[in-house]
């Protein structure tokens, strides 16, 4: 690990006062410390933000507010989250391990880096880590990589499960810098790789995530998160689906659909939502709508299985939803 200056700001104002380049915030450290050991991330200054008052899970005028430093375990266990947004609790409980969920924060989860093996290995090129050096994944080992939203520069998936469920719920992130506070829709927060895969999100230098806001959505109390992986537990998604449906009798009135393991960012599927609306709540409708999940996919050599897996995961999630009263 490279040397760095360690600071522990006592207030949010202190934490954002000097947005020097090469500064990293330390929350749970489950991404940052790992990548600092690998020298993939080499901040010159590390600000331990764990003393900041970015905590609490409560109902506000804008919806459910979750402090950025709340731990994955505590959010998944919270009564309001479990009752109103079961897909959020399920996405969190299907993530990482018990130890890591105790450590990892909600803010850090949204900002975690890709698990692409080339990104994590400083001895090989990678456009995301070393812009312009090339992308060995395109011709190399790419079974876990993205089939949606990729570019010629980068095909890495965004690994967060939580972000998939949050994007389905139209969540926003609240950001704080020296210049003040702003809210950004999570859907716009993560960026497509394009020609600049090193830019992963709309966070300005020195800007802090302070809260995540989940708007009220009464019918999200009927929602599920289904995650398909190489082993039953403690593994990143090959495919995942976050779905919520509002029914009007036997008809689907509205739906929210987002998928993980597929895209270079958490992937909302408006075309599937539109295809579900107004249809009978039955398997035939789900199968037909799921066809739209893979509009525009570009499979790579090792992940040609992903589009079909995606469609089936989506149908399974919709069927599971039927069983919830």
């Amino acid at each position, binding site marked *: 690990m490279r040397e760095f200056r360690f600071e522990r700001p006592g207030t949010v104002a202190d934490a954002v006062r000097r947005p020097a380049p090469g500064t990293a915030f330390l929350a749970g450290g*489950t991404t940052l410390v790992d990548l600092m050991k690998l020298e993939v991330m080499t901040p010159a200054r590390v600000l*331990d933000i764990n003393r900041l008052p970015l905590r609490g899970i409560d109902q506000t005028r804008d919806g459910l507010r979750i402090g950025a430093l709340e731990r994955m375990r505590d959010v998944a266990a919270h009564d309001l989250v479990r009752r109103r947004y079961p897909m959020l609790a399920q996405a969190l409980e299907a993530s990482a391990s018990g130890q890591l969920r105790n450590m990892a924060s909600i803010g850090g989860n949204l900002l975690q880096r890709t698990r692409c093996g080339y990104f994590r290995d400083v001895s090989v090129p990678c456009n995301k880590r070393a812009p312009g050096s090339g992308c060995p994944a395109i011709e190399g080992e790419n079974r876990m990589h993205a089939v949606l939203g990729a570019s010629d520069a980068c095909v890495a998936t965004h690994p967060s499960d939580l972000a998939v469920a949050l994007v389905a719920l139209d969540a926003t992130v609240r950001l704080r810098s020296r210049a003040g506070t702003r809210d950004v829709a999570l859907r716009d927060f993560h960026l497509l790789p394009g020609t600049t895969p090193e830019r992963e999100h709309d966070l300005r230098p020195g800007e802090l995530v302070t809260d995540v806001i989940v708007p009220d959505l009464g019918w999200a109390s009927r929602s599920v998160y289904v995650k398909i992986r190489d082993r039953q537990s403690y593994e990143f998604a090959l495919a995942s689906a976050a779905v919520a449906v509002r029914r009007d009798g036997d008809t689907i009135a509205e739906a929210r659909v987002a998928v993980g393991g597929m895209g270079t960012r958490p992937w909302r599927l408006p075309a599937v939502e539109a295809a579900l609306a107004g249809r009978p709540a039955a398997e035939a409708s789900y199968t037909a709508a799921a066809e739209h999940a893979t509009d525009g996919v570009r499979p790579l050599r090792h992940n040609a299985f992903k589009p079909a897996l995606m469609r089936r995961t989506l149908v399974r999630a919709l069927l599971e939803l039927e069983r919830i009263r």
Partner: protein
Amino acid sequence: MTESYGISRRELLGRSGTVAAVAATVPLAVADTAPARATTGEVGVRMTVNGSVTPLTVDPRETLLDVLRERLHLTGTKKGCDRGQCGACTVHVDGERVVSCLTLAATLGGSRVTTIEGLARGDRLHPLQQAFIDHDGFQCGFCTSGQIMSAAAVLADGRARTDDEVREQMSGNLCRCGAYPGIVAAIQQARKEAS
């Protein structure tokens, strides 16, 4: 590794470990100071380890795992992957299980740390330790202290009841020897004894 040299396996490992650590830190320190960079500055932390107040001065790069093993000589906590992936280094911080390899010691001022060495009460094994022996919950034993620390947190949490729930809650602890059936049986025994 025989006793006839008058040295235990632990002492031998401890000594050779120290030699290796010294040998490894010298070139590292040189490499780190070569590029012009802000100096790190040491950080004072006072944590309570297994009940004893332990004031330390740490390099901000030091993980809790390295501090436990190399500075406090609490070698019961194992280093498997050093990447947060295997669970061998699991300890409790303020009563919650964490992986010590991804925890920077500098962040732990005022924290209470419990390692496998702090689990037994005097000579009386913790019920989980006894249960792991009763059920052959290990082969080589490398993952075992992490398994037991993790299991202690799972039992305290109280949500896992069925074998499948135990497996799910314990999935962050890998066992290369595949002692999983014994591990699950041991945890179930300790759970039933406690209830």
